[in-house]
């Protein structure tokens, strides 16, 4: 019996994840050549490392193909409907911090809150004949957030990159994106709406609820959690 642990396959997120486990004496490492996605675990038995793109880890957890996985809390909420029925947060990991925010042009001096955005959306639609466009790749999170706050007369337009540029290019009126410092937003003459972020994201260790956890699996998980000092 082995537990499969999904971990981001490259970049800072992978390195920080390795460091985080390493601090508790569990050594994760890549093996083979630089290009080969193979990995090893030392310091605990019966745990197998699966290197995946961070964006695919929510799906693999929900399908029960991995027992645990490290990914951004934003990605789990965005990619999984009813996410808390499919995964459990075992531990926030304290890195990969980013806020999902909604930003509007700085010149919109009359818009400071979602309440203002809603009023402006109504006037914009009446004037321009179409719903105010918000560029984002976080469709589910933003739609849920705007519904909860009673914002209407907007539309989400998909933007997979360079989202902050869409307002100047007049392909959107506002943007919803992840930011850590807000630097890119300011450089593009955008400001963040007041009232707090839509979601405060960080790298998180998740456990799948969609795996048939055997007694042996649970014993390995208990051992792992003990080493990681996770209270469950």
């Amino acid at each position, binding site marked *: 019996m082995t537990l499969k642990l999904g971990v981001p396959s490259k970049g800072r997120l992978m390195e920080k994840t390795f460091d985080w486990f390493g601090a508790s004496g569990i050594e994760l490492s890549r093996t083979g050549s630089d290009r080969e996605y193979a990995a090893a675990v030392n310091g605990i038995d019966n745990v197998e490392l699966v290197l995946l793109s961070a964006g695919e880890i929510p799906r693999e957890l929900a399908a029960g193909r991995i027992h645990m996985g490290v990914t951004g809390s934003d990605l789990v909420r965005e990619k999984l409907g*009813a996410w808390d029925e499919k995964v459990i947060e075992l531990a926030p990991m304290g890195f990969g911090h980013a806020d999902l925010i909604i930003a509007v*042009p700085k*010149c919109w*001096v009359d818009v*400071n*809150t979602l309440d203002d955005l809603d009023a402006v959306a109504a006037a914009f639609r009446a004037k321009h004949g179409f719903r105010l466009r918000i560029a984002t790749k976080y469709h589910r999170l933003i739609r*849920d957030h705007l519904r909860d*706050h009673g914002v209407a007369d907007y*539309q989400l337009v998909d933007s997979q990159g360079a989202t902050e540029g869409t307002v*100047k290019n007049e392909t959107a009126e506002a943007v919803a994106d992840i930011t850590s410092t807000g630097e890119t937003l300011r450089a593009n003459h955008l400001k963040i709406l007041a009232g707090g972020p839509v979601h405060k994201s960080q790298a998180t260790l998740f456990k799948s609820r969609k795996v048939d956890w055997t007694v042996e699996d649970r014993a390995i998980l208990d051992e792992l959690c003990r080493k990681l000092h996770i209270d469950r």
Partner: protein
Amino acid sequence: MADKARVRIEAARFLQFFEDRGASVVEADILQPAETLLDLYGEDIRARAFVTHDPDFGEAMLRPDFTVPVVQMHMAQGAEPARYAYMGEVFRAQDETKHRASEYFQVGYEVFDRAAPIEADAEVFALLKEVLEPLNLRAATGDMGLLLAAVRGLGTTERRKAALLRHIWRPRRFRALLDRFAGRAPLPEGREALLAKEEPMGRKIPQIGLRSRAEIAERIDALREDAAAAPISAQEVELLDDLLGLRETTANVLEHLRDIAVDMPAIAGAVDRLEMRAEALARRGVDIATLDFEGSYGRTSMEYYDGFVFGFYAEARSDLPPVATGGRYDALTRVLGNQNGARREIPAVGGVIRPELTLELTGEAGQ
């Protein structure tokens, strides 16, 4: 759940009933252009409908209901008065925590008759009641026309009334706006600071995006007007709350509404219509002494229904959704009419039955 073949036979039985009562049977495409539905219901519909895509057709949705295609068909070619019946599957992406069917049958009956709207209301309700009679369901009714009339009659600015009307089907947002307009909730963050500025537009901020300086200036003027406007009186808010909190039989609610109308004359016309509808229902054999009326009925689940609204419920099975629902949706035909550039309003009332639920209930009754 009953199997599909049986559901289809049950649906056909209802369809035949409506056809026997003079309805023309119509069909609707399963693939509907997404744009029309998005413009009507907003981005939220994406969470509730199945969205699909074709390189030529563009974005499409599996029909979430028959109302929109039937109205469009009527607007394109229908002569009034018209009575339509239809049956088929509708598709709803369910919130995954609710575990309900995402594909089910509906049988519906819609009446387009501008000459006699109150009679049409009563006709649709009475027909559904008749065909569902053996199931002994509880009927609940409401009338969005009362709330709409009350808001239109408030002693406040047209802008505030328009804002409240726009959110009438979003009760939480409606309440937040009402509290603010009544001076019971603080202004949104930053509002006061903005209005205190001599030159709120600022000089050095680059102008980007489609929303122009003029539009921003216009809104600042509107905000100034709003800040200067007197709050909606506590008495008016209380009367609105009374309206929304009504839960009585139709016979009793009329008396109560007459009382409210003394202080809120704007609803008098709507109360008259409610009374005439009650009489029309009684003439069709509906017992209004036991017919439930709820002031808030239809507000959360029936966007664009702006008059008489109703639903039929199996009281012993609170786990089931309503077996049938319906009402008047003139607001929807108004928006659809405007979208097509026709600028016409087509008064319409209708209702739908879910045959897999009637089967489930009769199955139980037979055991």
